[in-house]
């Protein structure tokens, strides 16, 4: 198997006993390479918000997840793009206006005032539950990129949740799709990660700036490969 071209200049053969001699300055060269990959990741996410209610949170200070290791740095937290929320927000607003519409067009006059009062409260609670459930689906449905792995926490509805993770060195392929007017206009799409881990594929629908996410993952994978070469795999 051919050896990596990057390693060849670093290893010389001792003519006395033909054993490979690794120069002492190898580690600093690799460290700088590793640091360069990380710096490129930081450059990519520079200027991105740290506000916890945004769709893309770069290096958040007040965010952690259950299975997080100590000193494991979170690079980015990704939620669905905000424009994917427009539908349920509009429906919730229309639902909350419905009782006021009934005061203009009185169709439930056969009910006593008490029944109408209770019905109105019931309707507002239902509206709140609808909006709240959709908000929770957005808020808790997160894709997390750390320096060690990617974590996907799916919150489909109130009764279905799914947790999947893959280490960066298990990632085989990263692809993204951006289709349609809305996704092109607002720059979001579906990020697909093929892995050699137990979870074969991680899909992140509605991911903001999928191109940048793919680049971040590429840089982190390079960094992880560099760490493996250094024998400093964590």
């Amino acid at each position, binding site marked *: 198997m051919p050896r990596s071209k990057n390693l060849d200049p670093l290893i010389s053969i001792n003519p006395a006993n033909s054993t490979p001699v690794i120069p002492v300055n190898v580690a600093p060269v690799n460290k700088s390479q590793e640091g360069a990959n990380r710096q490129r990741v930081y450059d990519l996410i520079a200027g991105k918000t740290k506000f916890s209610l945004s769709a893309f949170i770069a290096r*958040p200070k007040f*965010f952690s997840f259950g299975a997080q290791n100590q000193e494991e740095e979170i690079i980015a937290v990704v939620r669905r793009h905000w424009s994917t929320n427009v539908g349920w927000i509009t429906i919730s607003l229309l639902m909350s206006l419905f009782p006021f519409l009934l005061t203009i067009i009185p169709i439930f006059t056969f009910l006593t005032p008490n*029944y109408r009062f*209770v019905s109105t*409260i019931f309707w507002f609670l239902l509206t709140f*539950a609808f909006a709240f459930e959709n908000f929770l689906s957005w808020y*808790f449905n997160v894709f997390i990129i750390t320096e060690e792995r990617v974590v996907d926490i799916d919150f489909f509805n109130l009764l279905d*949740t799914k947790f999947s993770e893959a280490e960066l060195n298990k990632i085989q392929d990263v692809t993204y799709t951006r289709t349609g007017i809305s996704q092109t206009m607002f720059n979001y799409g579906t990020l697909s990660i093929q892995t050699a881990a137990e979870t074969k594929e991680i899909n992140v629908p509605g991911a903001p700036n999928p191109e940048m996410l793919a680049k971040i993952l590429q840089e982190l994978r390079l960094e992880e490969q560099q760490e493996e070469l250094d024998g400093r795999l964590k």
Partner: protein
Amino acid sequence: MLPVAIGGYLLILLKGFFILASLLYIILSVVIVRQVFLMSKNVQDMHNSIIFALSVIHLIGSLVLLLFCLSLL
């Protein structure tokens, strides 16, 4: 206009429906509180306490709804 007798039966039926619906709604509210609690353990963010408080307020609202159903109707 409905005849008085039929209207009375209809209101009793409606009251039963409201009480049953509000009981089911309380179950839904409890599920929401429980789910928010579990998800807050998985994903810790600075707004989790506000979201948990909202889910509890929602549960209190559904209990108030049942009280209204039992007392006003």
